[in-house]
């Protein structure tokens, strides 16, 4: 589409400043169930989000319908939204940053691999999972790949473009032993197929399910607790969402007024590095602001909130390049989070725990977490730790506590950092003690 035409039309309708972002993606996904291709899907989609400012009021609109009526539709809805907008702050459109750190993260080799080779790969994985343990009764294995292109344009002449791709492989295994059924899920994400280690993946997912047999509950009390990196990533995500300036300014963040204060154990250091060359790389945000790497928490001290242009203006600081679109307005988001790992192995991390709990999965955190106070309570499973070793499996227990208290009680991480699908790289964590509910 000729986006220059949009800016002309917008100006003619009295929209002084405007911007437009375009995104296009295509995806492939294949999944197997009981040796058959259960799902095979190919998708492509496109959408445009446009925004403009009239009389200092902001309006925006999104559409997936791209035809000759698209620009007039967008403009009419921008005008309507701006007319009804009651925000007191005077809005404007960002002209552009001085410097952008563009990198090429697109891997052309991934798209060049034919679909039937990707199918063969997951067929191999399925076979290996069935062969790994006699108790495996069902396996679901899937391959998904996405390629996306985005562009950002504004009425000041700014033009930014980015192209990226990634794939992920997921497997869910169901095992039966007598009356007991256990499931386990694992996934691998990258943009380079050669980075995938099939044998290690199969071993991890199968052993994960096998270890759960014989699980029981445990007496309710406080235990020294080790939290698996995947669970820890979810918890840190809640913590980080409290560092969004908008939440702070609206008085609904547990981190309000805590800048430069010690809010966690000195073992906690968190950085946001959007310019890392990986599948989550991005060099401009939803407002066209250049992104930057930055420290959020250093040795337990809160150093930085996440800002978009509007919230930055309120605090009289610069945007940190964290603006993003959501629900018809500019919100705030983050990605490529790196939580500094420790130096010890997992065995060393738990070596001195006589009677503790290792949490490997939590369920219901979405509703069990009060994200303003940080209080949480959720269903969990994992293992007991007895005399420094992982012992019998635990099920139907609850993990509860307060997020900030938990981070203050953080004793450290092991060295096994992993990047999650939610773009948080984190290792397994040891907490002094947490409330475990059971029998």
């Amino acid at each position, binding site marked *: 589409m000729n986006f220059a035409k949009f800016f002309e039309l917008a100006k003619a309708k009295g929209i002084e400043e405007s911007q437009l972002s375009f995104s296009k993606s295509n995806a492939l996904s294949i999944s197997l169930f009981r040796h058959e291709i259960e799902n095979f899907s190919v998708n492509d989609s*496109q959408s445009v989000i446009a925004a403009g400012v009239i009389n200092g009021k902001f309006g925006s609109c999104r559409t997936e319908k791209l035809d000759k009526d698209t620009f007039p539709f967008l403009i009419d809805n921008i005008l309507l939204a701006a007319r009804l907008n009651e925000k007191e702050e005077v809005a404007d459109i960002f002209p552009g940053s001085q410097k952008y750190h563009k990198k090429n993260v697109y891997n052309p080799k991934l798209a060049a691999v034919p679909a039937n080779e990707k199918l063969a790969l997951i067929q191999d994985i399925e076979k290996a999972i069935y062969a790994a343990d006699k108790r495996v009764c069902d396996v679901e294995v899937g391959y998904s790949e996405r390629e996306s292109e985005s562009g950002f344009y504004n009425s000041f002449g700014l033009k930014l473009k980015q192209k990226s791709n990634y794939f992920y492989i997921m497997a869910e295994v169901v095992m039966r032993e007598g009356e007991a059924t256990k499931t386990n899920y694992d996934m691998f994400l990258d943009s380079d197929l050669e980075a995938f280690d099939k044998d290690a993946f199969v071993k991890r997912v199968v052993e994960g399910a096998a270890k759960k047999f014989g699980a029981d509950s445990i007496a309710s009390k406080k235990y020294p607790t080790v939290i698996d990196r995947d669970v820890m990533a979810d918890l840190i995500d809640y913590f980080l969402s409290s560092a969004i300036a908008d939440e702070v300014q609206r008085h609904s963040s547990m981190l309000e007024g805590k800048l430069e204060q010690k809010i966690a154990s000195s073992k906690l250091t968190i950085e946001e590095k959007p310019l890392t060359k990986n599948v989550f790389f991005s060099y401009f945000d939803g407002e066209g602001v250049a992104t930057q790497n930055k420290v959020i928490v250093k040795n337990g001290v809160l150093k930085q909130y996440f800002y978009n242009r509007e919230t930055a203006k309120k605090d009289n600081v610069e945007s940190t390049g964290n603006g993003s679109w959501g629900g018809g307005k500019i919100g705030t988001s983050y990605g490529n989070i790196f939580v500094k790992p420790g130096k010890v192995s997992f065995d060393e991390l738990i070596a001195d725990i006589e009677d503790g709990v290792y949490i490997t999965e939590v369920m219901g955190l*979405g509703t069990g977490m009060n994200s303003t106070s940080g209080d949480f*309570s959720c269903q969990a499973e994992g293992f007991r730790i007895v005399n420094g070793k992982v012992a019998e499996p635990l099920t139907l227990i609850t993990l509860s506590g307060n997020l900030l208290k938990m981070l203050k009680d953080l004793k450290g991480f092991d060295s096994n950092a992993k990047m999650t699908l939610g773009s948080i790289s984190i290792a397994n964590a040891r907490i002094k003690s947490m409330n475990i509910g059971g029998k």
Partner: protein
Amino acid sequence: MISKALALEVLNAALATGGDYAEIYVEETTPESFMLENGKVESVGSPQGYGCGLRILNGLRSVYGYTSDLSKKSLLALAEKLSASYEGERKITVEKIGNGRYKKHSFVETHLRDVPAEEKIDYLREISQIISGVDPRIVRVQTGLTCAVKNIDLFVAEGPEATHFHNIEERSRLFMIAIAAGAEGFETYFNGPGTTAGWEFFTKTLDYKKLAKETGEKAVMMLTAKECPSGRYTVVIKNGWGGVLFHEACGHPLEASSTSKGLSVFSDSIGKPIASPCVSAWDDGTIENEWGTSDIDSEGVPTQKNELIRDGICVGFMVDRFSARRMDGIKANGTSRRQSYRYCPTSRMSNTYIAAGKDDPEDIIKDTPLGIYVANFGGGSVNPTTGEFNFSASEAYIIRDGKICEPVKGCTLIGTGQEVLMQIDRVGNDLALGQGNCGAASGSVPVNVGQPTIRLKEITVGGRGGKLE
């Protein structure tokens, strides 16, 4: 959106390699949303969705694809790409497309889009003021109204004559969120009534003033609530949204997408007792103007009232066309749903509830010497294979000597679907429904959950307040 002639061409291209079923789902959705923050308009949105999903089945295989480019070239390319995954001879040539019939279950008097934006904003502002006025400790109020009108064209081919369905779904929902702050921290309370009726629901049917007041009051009350005890206790669950427990723990495992594959704890349960004899349950997509109601499902099958449990015995599942292929003698029953053209449809719940029993809800509480009363849930999740679930209460109280006493926070119920259904020992006569959005494989779909007041003899309660005394 696409002509019958083009649909015919696409269906035939899709079936060229031996597919025995093809379906085109074309959708144009024009939603509008108004969000107010502390009584001021924060955003007005009108994101337009547009695209087409194409599915081809061949025995127990399924391929699905979508595109937001509805040109002939794009649709034929999609059909070709998808059909290339089968390597057989054509079994079906579609010669014509007839019109599908169905009964309407939702009736709109005044479409939300015909109500001036200012009037809707004033309504939200009034609600916001009621909530803020409850108590100075309410520091933040969010109110919102969303309405989505989905224009659907569905073409289904299983033989030489395909069927075309045209359907318009209009759904609207009101959101009110109160955040209270005190020395104890923050508490959030939410209410979100929804409907497939029109503006008249919000202005006439719904007592929005009462609901707004209650939203504010509950947020403030929870500020000083003590931590919920943990252990195994008798739990009484209030009618209405309390049905989310049944939805998660029993509804999901009764979806054919898991039962047909043997992946559900209830896979082989037809004719067997799965609940206590006082429990009967239904999934009914036809309840007039309800949030989870539709006229037809995503495969063109008319919605119906499906019996799931009768007096504790499992009698039915929610079945979509694809899952039905794995199930001998069982037909699709109008429960195949999807969020949008981006999702391949599968069996899902609509308005799912435990039927009313005989007990007076007051008696149920009176007969409980010590336990927990859960008045509202935040939500929950379940693993359909193992049946393990969890729910967190957003409003709960201690029951002492048959009376509802002090509020408690941080209450989580955990257990398995099999266990909880058997633990129900009292069922009230006060069936009510509550609205939510259910997320699963085919996306987020609007659902009603529902139940009368029920009592669970004993269930695991998670909380930070130690033992209940």
